[in-house]
């Protein structure tokens, strides 16, 4: 417990979290501070490339675990399953329409890669190793949740949903962040330690600093979302935004323990399950469920669950994973 508190405190006072808080405060105070869209996009490309590459290079170094296949499968199953649970919780905890509930649910089955990146950086800071292929698991968890949520809606009478067509399917499976993450993972794997050495002063050394500026931007965006969409957050909705990641993390914990992952791997599995998408899923929802309210799912995912995971969730999940794996 005291270890968790110290970890949480340490986490809260890291440059990464404080940068996020700065962004949040600046936009709540309506400062005109903003990071150009192109720069934010450039930083996210950098982070995806770096995290994918490092994951691949680590697989090249430590060899492929026989567990990779099962872990990927577990990720896919979790991504498909969690929306069903989220949907149930939303119907109990809130008064959302079925349509909105399904759209929100999709976000919680899928993952937030920045939350994953922040967790990796916490693990690294504490010297806790994890399976390099977890980035591949992250990629595998992006899409299934969307199909699951569309199934939830179509089950209840398809009139609401424009359903899934092949164009949307391709857009989801080949969305830029999945392709970049998996591609960089492959490059890291193929080029291995040598490749990593060649570009490590680009993808390793400045990584944490770039993450700070990126989280500054996330704070700005989350703050703007709260300012605009805050009214939408009834008590029930807000509670869901905090309870659902905890529920998700338990499923991740179960999966991680059953798979026999390392302490770091279990923690990351918890983080993936606990985190909510704010890139791939919102875009898919605008196409497939245009009548669902975007400020509902964006505010919840970015304004509530993301900050919760970043500040409290990650140290909690890492603490639990360490305790239960004896890591």
């Amino acid at each position, binding site marked *: 417990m005291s270890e968790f508190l110290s970890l949480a405190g340490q986490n809260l006072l890291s440059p990464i979290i404080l940068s996020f808080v700065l962004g949040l405060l600046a936009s709540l105070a309506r400062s005109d501070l903003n*990071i150009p869209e192109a720069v934010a996009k450039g930083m996210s490309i950098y982070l995806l490339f770096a995290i994918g590459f490092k994951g691949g290079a680590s697989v090249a170094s430590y060899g492929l675990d026989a567990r990779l296949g099962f872990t990927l499968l577990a990720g896919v199953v979790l991504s498909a399953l969690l929306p069903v649970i989220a949907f149930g919780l939303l119907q109990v905890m809130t008064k959302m329409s079925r349509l909105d509930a399904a759209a929100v649910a999709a976000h919680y089955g899928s993952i937030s890669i920045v939350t994953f990146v922040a967790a990796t950086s916490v693990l690294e800071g504490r010297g806790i190793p994890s399976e390099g292929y977890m980035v591949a698991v992250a990629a595998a968890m992006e899409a299934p949740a969307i199909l699951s949520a569309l199934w939830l809606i179509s089950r209840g009478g398809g009139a609401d949903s424009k359903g899934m067509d092949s164009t949307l399917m391709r857009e989801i499976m080949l969305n830029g962040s999945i392709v970049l993450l998996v591609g960089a993972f492959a490059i890291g794997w193929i080029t291995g330690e040598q490749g990593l050495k060649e570009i490590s002063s680009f993808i390793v050394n400045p990584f944490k600093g770039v993450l700070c500026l990126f989280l500054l*931007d996330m704070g700005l965006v989350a703050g703007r979302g709260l300012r*605009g969409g805050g009214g939408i957050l009834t008590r029930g909705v807000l509670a869901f935004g905090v309870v659902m990641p905890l529920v998700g993390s338990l499923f991740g914990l179960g999966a991680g323990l059953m798979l026999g992952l390392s302490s770091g791997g279990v923690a990351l599995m918890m983080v993936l399950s606990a985190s909510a998408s704010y890139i791939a899923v919102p*875009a898919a929802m*605008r*196409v497939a469920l*245009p009548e669902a309210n975007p*400020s509902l799912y*964006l505010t919840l995912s970015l304004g509530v669950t993301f900050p919760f995971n970043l500040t409290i969730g990650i140290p909690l999940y890492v603490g639990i994973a360490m305790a239960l794996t004896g890591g």
Partner: protein
Amino acid sequence: MQTHKAKRVEITIENVMESRLTDALRKAGVTGYSVLPVLGGSGRSGAWDRAGQVSRAQGMVQVVCIIKPERLDALLDAAFAVVERHIGVVSIVDCDVLRAERF
């Protein structure tokens, strides 16, 4: 200078629908269009601006088509089928163009 009557149609639509719209336009026989960026705006679904985007879920673009008047209806039908259930605005203006053979 010789000019010709035409219609200028401007469709403001979500990013994610852009390629669906332009595909539909092409199928409806529209031979040309341009896409302009939109920085932000406000409507029944609230206000938004590009600086507030981490995801491309909310941004919008403006698709501009200049067409012969006789093709307007086909274009509007095609556009309407795409924007129908989505947020967005369609406006039509009378205009004159140079080089009518291009439209």
